[in-house]
């Protein structure tokens, strides 16, 4: 490994840790800027749901606060926070005490990953191929006609698309279930019936995210492809007599793909944001729903935990992209 590459790697790794440190600290501070007492709030919400009308809120919240070190000075809390993080202890939910945040996240994560990963990969690959094909000279009438449609679809935030799709497919046509992850009476087993049930319930949420993003990837790919087509090596390849398909795929797509991947990594943040709403709309038991309920309930260890997971995931993904990029494209190595 050349010293150039080594120093680049070292710089990037340092940057990664710095980014995580800053983001985690910001994540720690902000919920504590919330007014009011989250412990008292969480317990008080239980009061109004009828189950604890004769509870002495003050005494209980004092007890919880002492147990979770919330009565300590901020600096101590911060250090404890880091110590807990190293032990992978993200704290305990107030609203669902004594449930651990790690357990709640672990339960919700598979649903979100399944949904988001599938939808994003689908829209990314289909959109990119479509975009590439569109940019290639000789694209047929039919494909060209897709452009305005794709543009409109990519312009609608995909959680709004979700509303439209629920209306058309679940309420009017009743082809697909409108909510939930599985049927209410389904016994979850490792069999085809369960998988089929999960897939059936995942179609609409997945499609909302996928369709909303296809246009974005297609148009992005198209403009990347267009600038690639202007490059000299394309002309050279054609002059060499290579078949159009090969030129398209081997030289065109491959080179246009690299900036697309960067765009993918950068856009994951936006995808996650929109996915929160999609999950809320579909009563889908993923991280988005978890975050939403925690925010409304000021359950700040849960908020912190989920945001932390998201930040670290994104930071690591960007890091991997930055790592892969120079390996794939020698021109970029700094």
């Amino acid at each position, binding site marked *: 490994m050349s010293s150039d590459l080594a120093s680049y790697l070292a710089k990037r790794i340092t*940057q990664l840790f*710095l*980014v995580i440190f*800053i*983001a985690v600290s*910001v*994540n720690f501070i*902000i*919920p504590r*800027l*919330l*007014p009011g007492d989250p412990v008292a709030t969480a317990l008080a919400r239980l009061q109004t749901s009828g189950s604890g009308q004769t509870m002495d809120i003050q005494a209980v919240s004092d007890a919880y606060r002492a147990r979770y070190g919330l009565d300590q000075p901020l600096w101590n809390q911060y250090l404890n926070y880091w110590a807990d993080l190293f032990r992978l202890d993200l704290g305990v939910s107030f609203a669902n005490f004594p449930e651990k945040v790690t357990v709640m996240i672990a339960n919700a994560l598979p649903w979100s990953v399944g949904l988001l990963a599938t939808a994003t990969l689908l829209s990314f690959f289909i959109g990119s191929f479509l975009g590439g094909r569109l*940019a290639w*000279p000789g694209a047929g009438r039919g494909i060209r006609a897709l452009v305005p449609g794709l*543009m*409109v679809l*990519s*312009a*609608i*935030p995909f*959680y*709004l698309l979700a*509303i*439209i799709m*629920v*209306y058309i497919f679940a*309420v009017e046509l009743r082809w697909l279930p409108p909510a939930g992850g599985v049927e209410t009476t389904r016994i979850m087993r490792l069999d085809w019936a369960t998988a089929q049930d999960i897939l059936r319930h995942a179609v609409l949420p997945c499609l909302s995210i996928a369709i909303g993003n296809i246009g974005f990837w297609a*148009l992005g790919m*198209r*403009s990347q492809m*267009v*600038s690639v*087509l*202007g490059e000299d090596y394309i002309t050279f390849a054609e002059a060499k007599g290579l078949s159009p398909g090969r030129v398209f795929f081997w030289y065109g797509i491959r080179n246009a793909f690299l900036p697309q991947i960067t765009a993918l990594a*950068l856009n994951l*943040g*936006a995808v*996650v*944001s*929109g996915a*929160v*709403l999609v999950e*809320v*709309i579909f009563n889908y038991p993923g991280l988005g729903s978890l*975050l*939403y309920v925690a*925010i*409304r309930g*000021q359950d700040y260890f849960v*908020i912190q935990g*989920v*945001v932390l997971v*998201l*930040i670290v995931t*994104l*930071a690591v993904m*960007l890091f991997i992209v930055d790592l892969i990029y120079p390996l794939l494209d020698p021109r970029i190595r700094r």
Partner: protein
Amino acid sequence: MTIALKTRLPGGLGSRLGGTLIAGLSILGVIAFFSIIGPFFVDEVLAQVGSVRPRQPPGGDFPLGSDAQGRDMLALMVHATPNTLKMGLIAGVIGGGLGSILGLIAGQFGGWIDAVISVISDSLMTVPAIAILVVIAGNIEEMSTSVMAVVVASLSWMFTTRTVRAQVLSIRERGYIEVARVNGEGPLEILFREVMPNVMPYIVASFVGTSSAAILAIIGLEALGLGAQNEMTLGNTIYWAQQSSAVLRGFWWWWAPPIVVIAMIFVGLFLTSVGFDRFANPRLGRRA
């Protein structure tokens, strides 16, 4: 490059302004027009809770029907659209402006200033905006549209900074910059007289992009119920519709108009952005 830019001013505009840019600006223009004119013709009182008979489908007195709480949908659309546009504008100007300034400074001065700005910008970029925004938004006691715009702007400057900085870095290597430096121009003079005019197209483009992203984030927050509850905006309309199970109840005239208007705004912004890219970077127009 500078020379090419200087001849691209009025005179050569016609060939550069593609159909896309015109289309985008027209859509935005139409929406803006109705946003400005509309409120004079339609009474704001009608858009408040309880002003008209609730749950009426479109027709008769109510061209767009009324929602479950008694708001006239047409009046609501007419008054909500300008509010949403206003927020996007404020956020675009603040976010784009802040990002541009930081990008210019980082690119021009380099060194530790650049390092600090880059690290902060990169860290904040990994933070999923909605997570921080919901915490901040849920925290402010009296949320108003201006406050929301500023809150969103605070997390939308990073991309602009990155782009502008990269552009500044590439421009700095040009010959005429060296000439200016030799001529004794100070760094600030170089920044304003040589670099900035060439970065302008990117700054304008990023303003459009930032506005678009800001409106997206704002609508997202409002749809989650974290918007300025007292005010009429497109996102709040979606939230109220969801809370009253409008989809299940078949009140399409409640959730569909805001979605249509939002889509038009984004299509307009997108076309403008693409068209402007071609205007600023004619190479893109060659093969397409």
